[in-house]
């Protein structure tokens, strides 16, 4: 399912879907409160957040040097390192590794970067079956759907939806019991884990100092993918680094707490290299594919800080816009506040320049971010880029309106007069304290929301009255 081109159209579709809105509201509230409970179990949680932030910022500040050191460690540890500038290059590299390994089937653990490159399609075009093994991603794949949340990919589906697709695609009797559905997936995917020649994973953190790849999962598919097949390919964005193992601990302390409300995920896997000569199992080859795909451009722009994101999804759950429209409306892999910054960076302002406007700039995202990214500031910076490069439409009426407002607002007597006139006009349109239609240029505002009726006195009038009561002049 490809998204439709226009953000406004996608938002309308999402708003019309009552089930989606209920499911997203429930999931985001639940994840949000689990996060709070989990952070309460960490002594000095704010100090850990600052420490994790410092670690990630250090890694991306001198990103080129860090990548070179990381690469050198990986090679010393016995891994093969590949660099890809574009999704196509990354897919070709992985397809070549697969062909060389004689792989017919590849098992994948969750990797947002592989969604970015559409790796599954590329492998299938080469005759290699690619199987998603994270339960949510597996169901997404069966439905030919798209994930709607970074850590809860099928938050938009009911158990009945899941039961139906398993029944249709896997020829099993229909059930909507989540435990039974999970065990059907376990049996089916277990077979794939044992026969696959290639395991493909993402990477949560790459440790520069040691060349360690850190992967976190709850289901155990990350361990399967990195242990069972003969060849393991890890695909990672070039920004996924932390300087040291001590820094890794800082990030792990806040990641699971912010994402699912766990102290730590069930499985935290540190891959250092292919199996040693005396190991009884594990992959014989380890390949690491480092993907740029626009990240170096982000590093040079106004939103470099977003490269420190650890993809926990907490900002999605906190965002009033995400909570209303869900993930698909954002139109690409990364939804929510982080997506509104990353997607225009990776895919260009021309197609996704409207996303930075999908925010009220309330700051809830900055509040919950485990590494305290200043998301509102970056959204504003991107809005500025959109206007400067004319990639976001800014109609003449808007420009003229803002100019007029600036002229009025810098002339106090005229401003006071105009404010009073507008207040009287608005009060006349109000019904039970709300205005649901405005005339002329202002009609756009009330098309999707109501406007609160103005109070009888303005702030300036109240202030002057107060100063008079207190016996001083303003």
């Amino acid at each position, binding site marked *: 399912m490809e998204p439709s081109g226009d953000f406004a159209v996608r938002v309308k579709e999402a708003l019309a879907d009552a089930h989606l809105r209920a499911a997203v509201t429930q999931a985001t509230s639940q994840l949000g409160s689990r996060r709070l409970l989990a952070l309460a179990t960490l002594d000095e949680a704010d100090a850990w957040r600052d420490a994790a932030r410092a670690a990630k910022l250090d890694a991306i500040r001198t990103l080129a040097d860090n990548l070179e050191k990381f690469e050198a460690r990986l090679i010393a540890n016995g891994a093969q390192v590949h660099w890809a500038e574009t999704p196509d290059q990354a897919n070709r590299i992985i397809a070549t590794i697969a062909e060389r390994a004689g792989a017919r089937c590849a098992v994948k653990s969750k990797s947002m970067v592989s969604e970015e490159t559409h790796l599954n399609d590329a492998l299938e075009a080469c005759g290699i079956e690619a199987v998603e093994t994270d339960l949510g991603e597996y169901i997404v794949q069966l439905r030919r759907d798209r994930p709607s949340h970074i850590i809860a990919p099928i938050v938009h589906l009911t158990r009945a939806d899941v039961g139906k697709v398993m029944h249709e695609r896997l020829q099993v009797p229909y059930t909507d019991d989540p435990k039974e559905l999970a065990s059907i997936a376990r049996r089916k995917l277990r077979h794939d884990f044992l026969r696959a020649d290639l395991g493909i994973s993402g990477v949560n953190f790459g440790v520069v100092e040691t060349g360690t790849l850190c992967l976190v999962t709850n289901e155990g598919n990350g361990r399967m993918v990195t242990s069972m097949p003969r060849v393991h390919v890890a695909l990672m964005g070039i920004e996924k680094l932390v300087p040291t193992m001590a820094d890794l601990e800082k990030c792990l302390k806040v990641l699971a707490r912010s994402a699912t409300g766990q102290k*730590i995920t069930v499985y935290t*896997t540190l891959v250092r290299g292919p199996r040693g000569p005396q190991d009884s199992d594990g992959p014989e080859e380890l390949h690491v594919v480092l993907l740029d795909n626009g990240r170096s451009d982000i590093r040079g722009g106004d939103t470099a800080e977003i490269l420190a994101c650890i993809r926990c999804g907490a900002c999605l759950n906190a965002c009033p816009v995400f909570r209303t429209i869900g993930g698909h409306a954002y139109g690409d892999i990364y939804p929510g506040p982080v997506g509104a910054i990353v997607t225009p960076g990776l895919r260009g302002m021309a197609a996704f320049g409207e996303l930075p406007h999908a925010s009220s700039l309330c700051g809830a995202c900055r509040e919950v971010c485990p590494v305290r990214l200043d998301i509102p500031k970056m959204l504003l910076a991107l809005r500025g880029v959109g206007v400067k490069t004319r990639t976001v439409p800014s109609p003449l009426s808007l420009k003229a309106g803002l100019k007029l407002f600036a002229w009025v607002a810098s002339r106090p007597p005229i401003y006071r007069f105009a404010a009073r006139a507008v207040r009287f006009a608005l009060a006349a349109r109000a019904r039970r304290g709300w205005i649901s239609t405005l005339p002329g240029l202002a009609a756009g505002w009330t098309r999707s929301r109501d406007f609160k009726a103005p109070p009888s006195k303005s702030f300036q009038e109240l202030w002057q009255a107060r100063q008079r009561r207190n016996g001083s002049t303003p």
Partner: protein
Amino acid sequence: MSARASILNRIRRAERTGHVPTQAPSALPLAAAQASGADNLRRFAAELQALGVDLFIEDSDDAVRSRIVALVGSHPVLQWDAAALPYDVGGLFPWALTGKSPRDAQASAEIGITGADAAIAETGSLVLLSGKDKPRAASLLPPTHLAIVRRSALCASMGECFAAHADAIARAACCTFVTGPSRTADIELTLTLGVHGPGAVIVVVGP
């Protein structure tokens, strides 16, 4: 120009224009460093209970062995090689599969028996390093994972574990922290145990 060179060049140029904020280092709590062995065991037990892991604390080698025999019964077992298992547990089950057994046979085992290279009190995690005689499959394929932990292997935190075992972790191809049974909440946020890894974890702590 190779992809590598052009990516690195582009980043170096970008580093001159794009601003990355600075963050002053913060003072992290050191309380965990003062924890005693008894504190660690208490905390470990509380965390395992919250995770739904059965815990047995035994005071002698014999008690560990009889506990394991009682837990395993006659179930098919996949285990670490005898040399890697503590308290001479390795000889208890002559029928046990090991890392040398074929993959399909390993996959049919019902209980996986492993030791633990370390354990972490504050999260209830088992630390398993890959290496000689220690197949990863034993803690991954069977539906039940039975881990035997020496009391001295307990660390207060992950940081303490990284520091104490830095060399061993750096030598191992793979180091896994196992924290409770495999789980998912992908379908309507309903908690379900035992998706791909073991749905039950049992820990026996010995002297």
